[in-house]
Structures are given as structure tokens and as C-alpha cells.
């Protein structure tokens, strides 16, 4: 592989070589998709009417 080729790193590879960015994404994504969205659903739940 030429030197230029060796230096050219794809964005996906850069992501995979950056544990800090992966850490941030790995915390934020499930927290929004699962936790925060779930809490919002609960907060927006209307109170049950007693019979």
C-alpha cells in the first residue's frame, strides 16, 4: 500500500478508532431512545379516572 493510501482513513474507521466518541454515542443514543423517550411517555400519561 502506498504511503498516501495508508494515511487515508475512512470516517467509519476514524469512528471505530475513537473510543471517546463511541463512549458518548453509546451513552446518548440508548438513553434517548429507551430511557428519556420512555419517561416522556409516562409523564404524558393521563391520570386514570376512578370508577
Amino acid at each position: 500500500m502506498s504511503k498516501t493510501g495508508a494515511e487515508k482513513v475512512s470516517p467509519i474507521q476514524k469512528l471505530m478508532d475513537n473510543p471517546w466518541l463511541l463512549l458518548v454515542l453509546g451513552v446518548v443514543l440508548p438513553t434517548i431512545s429507551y430511557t428519556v423517550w420512555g419517561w416522556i411517555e409516562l409523564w404524558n400519561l393521563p391520570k386514570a379516572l376512578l370508577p
Partner: protein
Amino acid sequence: MATTVPGTMPIPSRPTRNHPPGEVRTCDTTGLTVCTTADKFVRYHAVSAVVFLAVGGVGAILLALTRWPAVHLLSAEWYYRVLTLHGLNMLIFWILNFEIALLYFLPTALLGTRLYSKALAWVGLALMTVGALLVDYVILVGDADVLMTSYVPLLAHPLFYLGVIVFAVGALVGVGNFFGTLYIAKRDHTYEGSMPLVVFGATAAAIIAVVTLLHGAVTLIPTFLWSIGLMDAPDPGWYRITWWGLGHMSQQVNVCAMVGVWYFLGTLTTGAKPLSESVCRGAFVLYILFINVASAHHILVDPGVGASWKIWNTSYAMYLAVLASMIHGFTVPASVEVAMRKKGYNQGLFGWLINAPWGNPGFSGFFFSLVIFGFGGGITGVVLGTQQINIMAHNTLRIPGHFHVTVVGGTTLAFMAVTYYVVPLVFRKEFYARTLCKIQPWLFAIGITMVGIGMSFAGSYGVPRRTWDAEHAGAAFPVGIDPGAHVMLGLMGIGALIAFTALLLYVGLVVAAVFFGRSNEGTKMQAWHIERDLKESVKREFEHEAGDHHVPGTVVLVGVFLASFVVYYFANWKWLADVWWVR
């Protein structure tokens, strides 16, 4: 100076780049640079893990012999107490201790760096130990019969919640120490280019552990404050969603760590190399981004959240993580097939598999773990996570049937398998009774498979989970269970006896080796099977990817897997269609 072959993993650089004097050695077997400080904490966490495994294992057999109606061993009070003890010791204390051991061992050995902080390692170890002992004590004196989930409004003694919090903080400190180790390895250029795949897998596990432990803190700190009267009880719906961010996500840490161990053992036992570094890393990234949303499986019958939330988190997003598992499920056996074929085991479709080193407990344990996790855990996981099917299976014994083949048949068996290398390489002690060592993974695999099948099919007959008496004796009206369920619960009980025997064997063999085994310092570890030089295979693993992708045997195995998946999936839909008339 580290070197990198294009498109590949780096070779670890010189041993003493950032190690303090006297805190480094070269492994006589693998040639890897070993940080002796990390080594010490790997040993402490591994011993601690095995102790909690033994405690959880005793709980396991007592529970199995209670759920087996023909035996029905424990009283109701002790059943729920032991169920709490079993869950926490097996799912949290055993596994997280072993994972912290892996998080210290893998980066220091494979990146050629020192451990970031000895002080943090001590703090983490102390907190994890104190927290776990506190929890076990409170459970055993009868002040926390709330099961592992401790759903509010069930209330345990404050020390129970405090113990779990202290343990979680300790684990978080250990994970922080891992990230610190990655940082100094990069800073000190102990490696260049991409980190080895196994360390990348450990990084994925550590990232998921951070999310997990943060959810644990958010759930249990207010619950602790409630238990001491400083807060009102948390909302049960909020608690369930947030707690499963700890409860299920912690099992995803296991998945990542287990897959990393598969790659590691594939290399150590057969010289296998990943077919494609990029694809395997991509699969770990999918885990990091998407696997944690699978916690929503536990909330599928909760009324507080809507269908969009449920379907997105258990289907669309979750299937990207399933894709990752299928990638690993293909590349791991395929890399073994390539390695074996290169050695000349080319006969037919499965000559490579038949001639694999089945007498090596590192190999047999790893391969059984792969098969049990894939066929048992993977298929049942996707099916049970389907919202419509889940309504038939929720809170039945099918759920424990699923996670006993993922966490126990998958993760625990993989960790047992790697122990047969950790003890000679890290403790530098040889195992006694090597024939028993070779039998142990077989026995455990057979036993836990029977447990998984027994639980799953008993659950299909409607046997509930977390219930002391499946037959509901004394109920106001007769309930009973199908005779077929009795057969399946019997299968579960016999399987549990076999698995427990194998677990005792494992604990006994490890204790005998660690405390009384012959030292192998200054020599190579005694090989589990006569074949290759480990130093050579580890070196090759760092050199380049496998170039030959001729894997017909693995393709057939994957075809069998997909066919099994399709049959099981549609059988469940058919079953659902038979439950109600839809007009």
C-alpha cells in the same frame, strides 16, 4: 516501536514503554508484555468472581430442586430469598467481577501498556467486595426478599440498596480504570493504528457498562432514599423502565465480553484470525449503539408506554444489534474453519470441525458457548422480543429459559473456558486432574442446555416464572399444569443437577490450581492439546487478517441456524393465531 501491517492489527511494542521498573514481565507462553500490577488485580477479581459463582450456584440448585414439582425442596419464604441471592450473585457479582478482570487483562497485555491506576484498582475492588458482601448478608438474614429486580413498592432493608449502589460504583471505578489504561496506551504510543479486535470488544463492553451503571445509580439512589424515609416511593412505572436500564443492559456487557472471549479463544486454541477486522469492529459498533434498547423487552406488557416506543426499541433499532450478533455468529466459526483448513483438515464440509481440539477445554467451552448462545439464546431472544408473541410468553418460564442459555450457556461457559488459559497465564499455576478439566465444559454445556430446554417448554405450557409453586396448590379454584410441563420441569431439574456438578467441578479445579497448583513460572504453560506454539499463533494474530474465505462448513451451519430460526419464529406466530379467534 510498534509496527502495523496495512489493513490489519498492530503488533504490541516494546515491553517497558510506560511500565514502572519491576512491574512488567514477558509471558513465557504467549510472548506478550504483562503488567504485573494489572496481573495482581486480575487475580483478585477472578478469585472473587469464582467465590460469588459458587454462592450463586448453590442457590441455583436449590431453586431448580424447588421448581421441580416432584422435589419441591424449599419453603416459599426461602425460595424467594434464595431467588434474590441467586440472581444477584450470578448476574451481577460473578459476571461483573470476571469482566473487570478481563478489562484489566486485555488492554494491558494486548496493547503492551501498564494499568492506569493501582489506587483506583484498589478502590474498585474494595467497593465491589464490600457491596456484594453487604447485599448477600442482608438477603441471607431475610431483610431483602424482593428478588433481584426489587420492584417498588416491594421494600428491602436500606443496606440492600446501599450494597448494590456501592458495588456498582466499584464496577464503574474499574471501568474508569480501563478507559484510563486506553488513554495512557494511546498517549505513550504503546501501540499504533487500531487497537486489536479483542480489546475493541472489551471497549464496547466497557461503554455499555457505563450506560448500565449510570442507570443503576439513577434507579437505586432514589430507591435507597425512599427506604430510609427521605423520599416518597418512586413511581413503579418509572422504576421498571429505569431499572431495566441496569438489569438488561448489564447482560449486554456480558454479550460483548463473551464475543471478545470467543475471538480470543479462537486464536489461542486454533490460531484463528478474524475474517474481516472492519466487519467485526462494525458489528461491535452496532452493539454499542443499539443493543441497549433491548431492555424494552421487559416492558412490553406495561401499559404506561405506547406501541411506538415498544416497537422501535424491540424491533427496528434492536434488529441492528441482532445483525451484529449474526455477523459474529458467522465470523467466529468461519475464522476457526479457515484456520483448521489451513492446517490440512479439509475433508468434506465438517472435517475441520470434527478434528477441532475438542479435548481442549478452552476450545470446547468456547464453541459450545457459541452454539448454545446462537441457537438457544439468539433465536428465543428475537422471538420473545417480538411484541405480539411476547404477550404469550411474558412472565412465563420461557423468559428464564432464554436467559439461562444466553447468560449461563453463553457468557458463563465462555468465561469458564477462558479460565483454562487465565489460570496458567496470569496465575502461572497448572491445573490438576486435566481429564476432569477436559470433561467439565461438556458436562456444563449438556446440563445447561437441558435446563434451557426444560424451562422454555415448561413456560410454553404456561408455567409462570418467579413462582414458588407452579401448581398453585391451595388456590380457590383448581389451576394445575399440563403433564407435559411436569416432564419439562423434570428435564430442567436433571439438567440443573448435571450443570451444578460441572460448576462444582469448575470451582474445585480452579481453587486447586490457584492455591495448590504447580507453578509454571519461567516455562511455557502446559498445552491443552499437542499442536502449535501459542507464541507463534498470538504473533500471527497480530500480523494480518485471514485471506482465504473458503468456509463451506460454516455456511451450512449458518443455513441450519436460519432454518431453525424461521421454523421457531413462525411456529410461535401460528401458536399465537391459535390463541384467539380473530374475526
